[in-house]
């Protein structure tokens, strides 16, 4: 076996997923999906705590090959992706009961997981790009699942933006083939001796790649697909879209920045300033639009734009501490945003309310769901003792380490954005739990959903607090990653 074990998490869900539509018995299908995803998560965690592997599956030419390995970044992303994917699957067992074509949904859901594992474990650009494009294609059916005209239009928009963004990335790849010694991911960069004489040109290429991959991560200027695609997708799909898929854009950016171009080539140059300004303005824009938005899921989508740009900000600052903060924010945001979207899904599932103005007193009807919503909100704002506080602390202190004025402006924007985040999330919490004196308690009925929805939510909420209180092991792990890179 040996290194072939790396192929298992990638191809196991894909192969199993393809047979999903043929399982007609719903109970049986539920069990199969859960067992497969659980096994998948188990294997991924075993891999993460085991020794490093690497395998070359197919060499196409000198520069191009399909190969996998598990380094630090791979372990981090594969672990939280598979865990959250499993929890979202548990949630969707109940949620998908009021949707059609459940078999098709789970087929694409599972195939997507395999593809995401492919991105996580890929050890060169070619492999990552292959799975990156597949990710777009495999998740698009999740977006347009309901098949309403809006959903189809949103799906096409998602497709258009993603393909365009990935295309920009591909253009960069061509240049990297010329100016790089290899396209394997090597910590510290792969640029060859020719690169220095074409430095500014390569930085333009890098900027294009950042904008392209930034599309998936919701970075301005290619952010517009998020608020369109999230509200129309089924709740579990929007949860993973917002929590996980955006993180794959982040992963691609990390790989390009730290493993292909290298920090030394970029730090302190004009291109760093440009991408910092882009990410900082995205943070502000997302929060501000979320603050003004009245539709719950759309508000959360704008919130994602802002929060994922925190991660990008941390990456682009290019100091070890800030990078550590960015990785923490990846985890914190993935957990919190999944919890928020699942809460929104539970509310839609049970009451049909989609606007924040309709949520008065919802905390009395669904106390546990709203409690999880509250914990996740606290994390997004950055209130201790939640994971979001730790990540923001590391981001900000890391940004101050950089000798540059933009990160300092970024911190001010971070604080303003936190204030806006409080403005758009705590008003919901306040309305939900404090409906006012004239609230009719006699009409109150317990609308708490069943265990399939509650358990994943509670697990995520607990994870937020646990990571917030005991982050030291995670931080140690991230520090080991950063020492490789810097």
């Amino acid at each position, binding site marked *: 076996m040996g290194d072939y074990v790396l192929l298992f998490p990638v191809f196991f869900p894909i192969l199993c997923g393809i047979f999903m539509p043929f399982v007609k018995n719903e109970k049986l299908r539920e069990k199969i999906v859960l067992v497969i995803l659980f096994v998948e998560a188990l294997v991924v965690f075993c891999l993460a705590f085991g020794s490093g592997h690497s395998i070359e599956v197919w060499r196409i030419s000198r520069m191009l090959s399909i190969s996998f390995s598990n380094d630090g970044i791979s372990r981090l992303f594969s672990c939280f992706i598979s865990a959250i994917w499993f929890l979202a699957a548990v949630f969707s067992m109940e949620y998908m009961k009021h949707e059609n074509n459940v078999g098709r949904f789970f087929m694409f859901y599972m195939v997507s997981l395999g593809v995401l594992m492919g991105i996580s474990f890929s050890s060169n650009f070619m492999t990552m790009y292959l799975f990156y494009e597949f990710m777009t294609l495999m998740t698009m059916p999740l977006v347009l699942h309901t098949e309403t005209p809006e959903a189809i*239009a949103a799906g*096409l928009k998602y497709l*258009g*933006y993603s393909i*365009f963004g990935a295309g920009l990335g591909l253009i960069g790849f061509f240049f990297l083939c010329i100016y790089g010694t290899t396209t394997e991911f090597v910590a510290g960069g792969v640029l060859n001796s020719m690169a220095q004489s074409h430095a500014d040109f390569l930085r333009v290429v890098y900027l294009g790649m950042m904008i392209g991959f930034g599309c998936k991560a919701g970075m*301005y*200027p*290619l*952010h*517009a697909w998020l608020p369109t695609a999230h509200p129309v997708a089924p709740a579990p799909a929007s949860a993973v879209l917002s929590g996980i898929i955006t993180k794959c854009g982040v992963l691609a950016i990390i790989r390009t920045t730290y493993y292909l171009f290298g920090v030394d080539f970029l730090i302190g140059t004009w291109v760093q300033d440009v991408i910092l300004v882009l990410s900082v*303005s995205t943070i*502000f*824009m997302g929060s*501000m*639009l979320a*603050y*003004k938005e*009245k*539709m719950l899921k759309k508000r959360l989508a704008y919130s994602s734009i802002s929060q994922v740009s925190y991660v990008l900000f941390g990456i682009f600052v290019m100091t070890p501490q800030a990078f550590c903060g960015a990785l923490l924010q990846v985890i914190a945001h993935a957990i919190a945003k999944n919890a928020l979207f699942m809460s929104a899904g539970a509310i839609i599932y049970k009451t049909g309310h989609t*606007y924040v*103005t309709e949520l008065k007193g919802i905390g009395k009807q669904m106390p546990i769901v709203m409690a999880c919503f509250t914990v996740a909100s*606290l994390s997004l*704002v*950055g*209130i*201790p*003792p939640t994971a979001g*506080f*730790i990540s923001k*602390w*590391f981001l*900000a*202190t890391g940004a*101050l*380490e950089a000798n540059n004025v933009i990160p300092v402006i970024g*911190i*001010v924007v971070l*604080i303003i954005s*936190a*204030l*806006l985040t*409080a403005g758009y999330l*705590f*008003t919901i919490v*306040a309305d939900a*739990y*404090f*409906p*006012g*004196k004239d*609230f009719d*308690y006699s009409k109150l009925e317990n609308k708490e959903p069943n265990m399939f929805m509650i358990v994943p939510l509670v697990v995520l909420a607990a994870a937020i607090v646990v990571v*917030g*209180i*005991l*982050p*030291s092991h995670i*931080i140690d792990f991230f520090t080991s990653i950063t020492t490789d890179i810097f």
Partner: protein
Amino acid sequence: MSAILVFIVIFPMFAAVISYIIGKYNKNLRNYWACVSVFVEFLVSVFVCNKALFYKSHTLFGLGIEFKCGGLRGILIVIAAFVWLMSTLFSNEYFKHYRNRNRYYFFMIITLGATMGVFLSADFYTTLIFFEIMSFTSWVLVMHDETENAIKAGMTYLTVAVIGGLITLMGMFFLYNSTGTLNFEELGEIISQSSYKADYYIYCVMVFVGFGAKAGVFPAHIWLPEAHPVAPAPASALLSCVLTKTGVFGTLVLSTQIFVYDSTWGFFILVLGTITMFLGAFIAVFSINLKRTLACSSLSQIGFILVGIGMQGLLGEHNALASGGTILHVLNHSVIKMTLFLCAGAVYMNLHELDINKIRGWGRDKKLLKLVFLQGLLGIGGIPLWGGYISKTLLHESIVEYIVHLAQHGESTIVFNIIEWVFLISGGLTLAYMTKLFVAVFVEKNEYESDKENEKKYITKTSAIVLIVCAVLISAFGLMPYKIMDNVAYAARAFMNSHQPDHSVHYFAWVNVKGAVISVLIAAFVYIFVIRALLIKKDKNGKSVYINAWPKWLSIEEKIYRPVLLNILPFFGGSIANLMNISFERVFRGVSALAYGICRYVAEPSFDKTVAVITPMTINVCGYAEMSFEVVCKLFENISAIAVNFFDELFEWFRKKAESILSVIMEFCVEPSFEDLYKISYRFFERIAVIFSGLIENLLLWMLIIIVVVSRFIKSTYNYIVQIVLYFLFNYEEIAYDGKRQFRKDAYFSRFSIDKHGENEGGRDSLSMALILFGIGVVAALIYLII
């Protein structure tokens, strides 16, 4: 042993969860459990209060947390636990008929743990973590009543807490970055050794914002007078007695641990303290709401405490009086204000009213309550033999000491003389508004409800005992200053870096009693000539009522904070964000629509489409060509016409002229006459007139041509621009699905309609479209003008 500090912080958190679970099944048992757990907390606090313990964890919360105990921290945790115990005992009766009691107990007990965490913390990271937890859990207590006012006040409280907390956080980022530590003592060492302090002042002012907001320091005091009246009385007692003290604790850390003996920082705190002290007392005189008056009083007392903190910085190493005054006033204020708020709670419990016109005279026959309230009044008013006198005397003495110190060095003392007088006046106002409350509630008759049914039992035994304990404490503090107060001050001295005072203070010597006498005189003056004379009016039934003479418009919150935060900033921020959001999407859509169209055409070129696209284009091109040809032709025609005409005329004119001149000359020569002369001149003028008329005719033609050309050009350009812009602005999908490349007016305008949720979907689009149209128009106009 040091793990006991963790126990103090963690135990309430678990106790809260247990109380919630118990409360689901049995309400009485839950109340007992709450009392027992808070009592355990109190015992443990008393047990550890004078032990120097230290706990450090390197891993918790990422950076690790540090707890310390002993000295000032010991005093503060005992105060907190004591107030909590009394309030919990009192809650039992107060909340008898309330909803959501489980929620109240849950968050109240968690808040206790968080507060303990703040008081025990030995570095700013720990302080911040528990400070934020405390802000959020106490928010629930403020909003507990869920009335409209309570929700509004709660949101104000939350906003102040969040903004303050975030600015504090930002200050800590900078502080941590520039020093590499957040431990109080290490920070103090680093900052005292640095020669350039300006940056540290800025960072520490940022850190101070959050603490100051919690303490109610001007100008972030707005939440206090709002939140206290609407919160349940036991919760207001907690807010006022303990939570504001967490802000004071933070300020103390900044002033006595980090900026040790720093006169600049001390003066900064002193000025804010003086303003807060006077402002709180001044507003309280006008207030006619029982709890609101007490809240304003809290503001004022926090101001007194800050004056003490500021004086410590100014006095340097001789700050024993100031430090003693500060900690003793913290102690006094906590106990006295708890007594008063619980009295107010007893009133509210029975009448569900806080307006002093409505509760007037209710307490005339309630002897116990009257006595307890009187104790509070005398305590907070600074009357000798009661608690407040001791601490106010020390604070006053510290100001006097500094004035003497300045005078000895020959410096101007005017500023501090003013501060001393503000101090005495604020003390006088304190006594005046408390007298107003006391007289209104316990002495005067209510002219409206003279025959109120006299309930015998207005308070349970437990609550009565709670009130008595508090009242006795106030007297005890005042009667035994050397036994109790001096020891407390001594215990806190190490934290505040102060030394043994040069001489012990004789509290009851005339020098010190004089200040109290001045304050009493001011109080008498204010009560008689302001409150009785100006603030009591006859209403339309001829009966006297207390009026609220405070002008409604004079509210810093309504006039500045709310508009700025809710309207102005979101408007600007929102406009920028909207423009950013839409601008690129539109461009992207336009470009992709164009690309899509081209690709579609390239993929399947068809004659129809070609014709459809080409024909209007050709027509227009031809139109332009035709028009321009026409113009050119006309131009040539005109030019030639003019030229021909001109030369023709000229030639003719010459010919005729010559001819006529010749003939005239001939005739004139043959037969000279006046008539011939006239003819010559007539013809001459006639010719000139003809030429001019021709010229004018041509000019008009020219102008006509220009107008036609320009207007046609503008019109067609405008049409094209509008069509292109609308095409880009539109969902190109709509147009593509439509099959017809037409401007669908109805579809477009439906986007402007307002849906049932009052949300204007198209509003943003219309704004952006108008802006883009306007921009393109301007650019086009500019280009046209330049060309």
